[in-house]
């Protein structure tokens, strides 16, 4: 009787969300794997042709896909570095005993709240007009020109803007890490005559390793999955030079109408993202045990 009652409550509390979750996430995920084995143009009147693993084999002949994979890797590596360097520098600045530290922290975090799509448009204008204007003003036309029309610089522009968005976010993670460092350790080093640089390299940085692991992988997976900024800032251009992974999948499915092939790409995308995230969990867990 008591058991039956318990089961009734369990169903009442868990099933509504579980039902929604299953229909939105689980079922589409499974159907998605199924679609990846077919050739289909997405029109329900047209037949779906079973092609086995052909879609996955074809990936290696798709130059644009391979290019996207390379560009995404390059973008991810560059932005993970810049975001973490800038974010850590911000965190160190706003945790120092400077009067305006709190106000600065509030301001530096703000870009993160503006959605990727909108800040991509904001920066489109900055690159187009303000950079050209600064180029004319200063004569440094090698630096200040419209980055978005140059295939190589357009990717750097993406890194730049993504750093602008995410630096304040990882700053918050680093602040938590810095505040957890016991003050007496730092004071003792000061008394022993350690320079600020030595204190940073020998004390702060090693003690920040847990925060570093967290923000490295947070930025790693979000950089790898970037879409909104990519769409609004460069739209993949010029000439597909900045078409990153997520956009390549979208364009293959909804642009070219290759539903099966595009879905195969999407599955590969999932496997890579999952591998990155699981490595993160593994490393974080291992570190926690050591500490």
């Amino acid at each position: 009787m008591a058991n039956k009652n318990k089961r009734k409550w369990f169903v009442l509390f868990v099933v509504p969300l579980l039902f929604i979750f299953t229909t939105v996430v689980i079922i589409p995920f499974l159907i998605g794997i199924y679609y990846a084995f077919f050739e289909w143009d997405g029109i329900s009147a047209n037949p779906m042709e079973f092609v086995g693993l052909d879609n996955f084999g074809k990936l290696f002949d798709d130059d644009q896909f391979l290019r996207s994979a390379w560009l995404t890797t390059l973008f991810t590596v560059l932005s993970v570095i810049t975001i973490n360097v800038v974010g850590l520098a911000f965190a160190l600045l706003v945790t120092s005993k400077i009067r305006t530290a709190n106000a600065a922290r509030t301001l530096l975090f703000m870009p993160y709240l503006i959605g990727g799509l909108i800040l991509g448009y904001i920066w489109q204008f900055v690159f187009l007009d303000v950079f050209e204007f600064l180029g004319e003003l200063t004569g440094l036309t090698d630096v200040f020109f419209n980055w978005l029309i140059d295939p190589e610089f357009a990717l750097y522009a993406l890194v730049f803007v993504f750093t602008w968005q995410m630096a304040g976010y990882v700053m918050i993670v680093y602040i938590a890490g810095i505040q957890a460092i016991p003050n007496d350790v730092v004071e003792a080093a000061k008394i022993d005559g350690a320079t600020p640089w030595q204190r940073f390299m020998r004390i702060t940085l090693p003690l920040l390793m847990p925060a570093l692991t967290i923000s490295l992988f947070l930025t790693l997976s979000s950089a790898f999955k970037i879409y909104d900024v990519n769409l609004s800032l460069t739209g993949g251009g010029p000439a597909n030079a900045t078409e990153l992974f997520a956009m390549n999948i979208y364009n293959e499915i909804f642009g070219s109408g290759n539903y099966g092939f595009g879905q195969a790409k999407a599955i590969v995308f999932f496997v890579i993202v999952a591998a990155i995230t699981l490595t993160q969990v593994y490393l974080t867990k291992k570190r926690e045990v050591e500490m």
Partner: protein
Amino acid sequence: MKKASGWIKSILLILLALFFLSPIYIIFVNSFKDRQELYENALSLPESFSFQYYIEAMEKMNFVSALLNSLYVTIVSVIFIVVLSSMTAWMLVRTNNKLSTFIFMTFIATMLIPFQTLMMPLMQFISTITQDLGIPMYNTHEGLIYMNIGFHSALSVFLYHGFIKSIPITLEEAATIDGASKFGVFWRIIFPMLKPITATVMILNVISIWNDFLLPSLTLIDKGLRTIPLSTFYFFGEFTIQWNLAMAGLTLTIIPVIIFYALAQKHIIKGIGEGAVK
């Protein structure tokens, strides 16, 4: 001497922060300039503050309607997410069996799936349901809210789960002996204790649902249903060259975010920190 250098550092730091936000300043000042003034000096303050471009941008973006749509979708989604995922997480923590562990693990595992992997099959599934069962999932706010709940439940259940584990069970047991139903125990005793983590869950979900573009762009077709990111996207598609209009439009879209930030700044920074570290 020391005092003076402290002031200099304070001023430098705030200048750095303001410089960091200069793109927002640039958008703002140029939203008042006509084309010629804009090209002469993109950095200067405008000669006059006329709201002409704002009025035009508001009309072309359908801003009021987009704002109301965004508010409706975000608020309703977040309420459902908070209610459903806190209930689910509590029951999963307090039930010690294989099924409960399995359900929790499934929630966690799906956090690995990127949206791009789900978007096409989800759209197929949703349109099948809309056509064959007659349930209006496609091209409705309610359908979008339903999908938002599904996509954001895993992280929310995870956050609640971690928090509830640290609440001692004795409180609930006492209430159960007094004859309160599980429902009463949860809403009267447990839910009020979840306040800190509820704030975190709400903030994380508000930010990601408010700014979400891809999912609404796939599900909402009618112009009148568009949320702010969607109407911004179509606005730029139609008026790319008219930058002063675009600037006014962008400023409009940032205003709600700034208001939200000003009102809940402390909670937001705290919530983001907690969400990230877990």
